[in-house]
């Protein structure tokens, strides 16, 4: 039985379909990249999987509870005065959804410390999240997502606003945890390259349409041209993929690394 199943999933706003008829079965341990232009509904698809966004039609079923999904958000700078320490942020990833007082057992502390060690952030435990750099914050976010040993990790553009080094490091950490925990990963990104070596399948969303398949099946000029209804060139260069023209209707004279 698959971990996550989307059947004919459709989401529309004011008659306009953001995406429609999405069929997908995600198996344990699978790494799926979710790609598309801004406004193509990537984040909405994640929210629908989390159950915080209702579908217009179709169905999504996840073989588990919402608390068995780990979530890595996009990087945002926390207010530097925010009274939340790294240790507590990670700890809330484990039991923050449960009622009661936040009394911490020895076992809880060791699990939180182990998660921090996994992302090489043990030394940050007592820092406030607002005092972290972008790369540190995203590593802490990964620890927060994996501390509950989730069956599924949803990452919503976790690499945006990071420099290339940190992009690779955070992507590597998520992939390492996927292997260690056997979790499936759905990874929203606008740049496939930092995760290209880990990806099993790609979901490409554009213009209300979508294409699902392996990287080689989806990231081709014909497929993307068909999705966008315009001439798109997919160029491969030393293991990287460059998409030319995909977003010309949005940003002129700009190439996008996809």
């Amino acid at each position, binding site marked *: 039985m698959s971990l996550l199943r989307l059947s004919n999933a459709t989401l529309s706003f004011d008659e306009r379909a953001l995406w429609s008829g999405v069929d997908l079965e995600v198996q344990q341990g699978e790494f799926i990249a979710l790609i598309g232009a801004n406004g193509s509904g990537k984040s909405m698809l994640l929210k629908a999987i989390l159950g915080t966004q209702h579908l217009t039609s179709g169905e999504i079923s996840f073989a588990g509870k919402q608390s068995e*999904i780990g979530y890595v*958000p996009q990087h945002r700078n926390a207010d530097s005065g*925010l009274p939340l320490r790294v240790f507590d942020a990670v700890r*809330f990833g484990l039991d923050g*959804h449960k009622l*009661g007082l936040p009394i911490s057992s020895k076992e809880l502390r060791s699990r939180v410390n182990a998660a921090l060690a996994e992302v090489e952030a043990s030394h940050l435990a007592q820092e406030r999240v607002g005092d972290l750099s972008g790369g540190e914050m995203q590593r802490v976010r990964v620890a927060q997502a994996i501390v509950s040993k989730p069956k599924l990790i949803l990452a919503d553009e976790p690499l945006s606003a990071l420099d290339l080094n940190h992009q690779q490091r955070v992507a590597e950490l998520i992939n390492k945890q996927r292997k260690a925990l056997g979790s499936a990963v759905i990874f929203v990104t606008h740049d496939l390259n930092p995760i290209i070596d880990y990806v099993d399948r790609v979901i490409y969303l554009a213009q209300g349409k979508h294409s699902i398949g392996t990287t080689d099946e989806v990231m081709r000029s014909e497929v993307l041209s068909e999705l966008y209804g315009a001439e798109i060139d997919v160029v491969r260069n030393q293991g990287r993929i460059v998409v030319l023209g995909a977003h010309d209707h949005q940003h002129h004279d700009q190439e996008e690394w996809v």
Partner: protein
Amino acid sequence: MDFSDIINFSDYDQLIPLVLNSLWAGALLALIGGLVGVFVMHRELSFAVHGISELSFAGAAVFLLFSLDVVFGAVFGSLLAAAIIAFLGDKARDRNSIVAVLMPFGLGLGILALALYPGRAANKFGLLTGQIVAVDDPKLGAMVVIALVVLLTLAVIWRPLTFASLDQEVARARGVNDRLLGIVFMMLLGLAVAGAVQIVGALLVLALLVTPAAAALRLTSSQLWVPVLSVTFALVSMVGGTLLALGGTLPISPYVTTISFLIYLAARLVAKVRNGA
């Protein structure tokens, strides 16, 4: 007026038994005020506290005018205001404007009710600026009930409420019902404010529901020490203020608000020295 109006301890041992009710009520209020205040700060609700307290005052004044129970009036006004703010003011921007609209309306309504009230003037201003010896047994009883409801509910929702207040996006993704928790918390806030209006008065509620927590947050980000310090500061302000007020002839509030303010200043100073600034 001479200095003995402000502080005068000559009959102290005889005065204490007369105000035991006030001391107990004040201590309970400080306990819930210090704890609720932590979430007022986390959720940036300081301004809402002020708005709720004005409507609580209006409720108490209107009930007083119609010879109904003042405590119920205060609770009624505050819960109504808290509900309006909780349901309409989901976003900070909306919330601020709703509070700003409610506040003068509540104050005006309360002043109207007091103007029409035929009783003594001293009773009237108690609701705005606090009263020290007015805590009779039924009022203390009401305070105990309010404190129990607030403490027990807070104990149940503490962890997810903290998560949702400090890390909303991830909390929602993890299945925390932030909207529901926010509404429940606003009701607790309403109850705490209604209790505070009885004792420190509507205009000075912030000194117990915001200042102690704000001072605590200057000193630490620890999930344990923030509430512990906040309650301690609230207790020192409230009980200390009551004891000082006993000696003089002035109302209790200036003592409470002054101590609370001084603690906040000291906390800022300590934080500044510690950060080496």
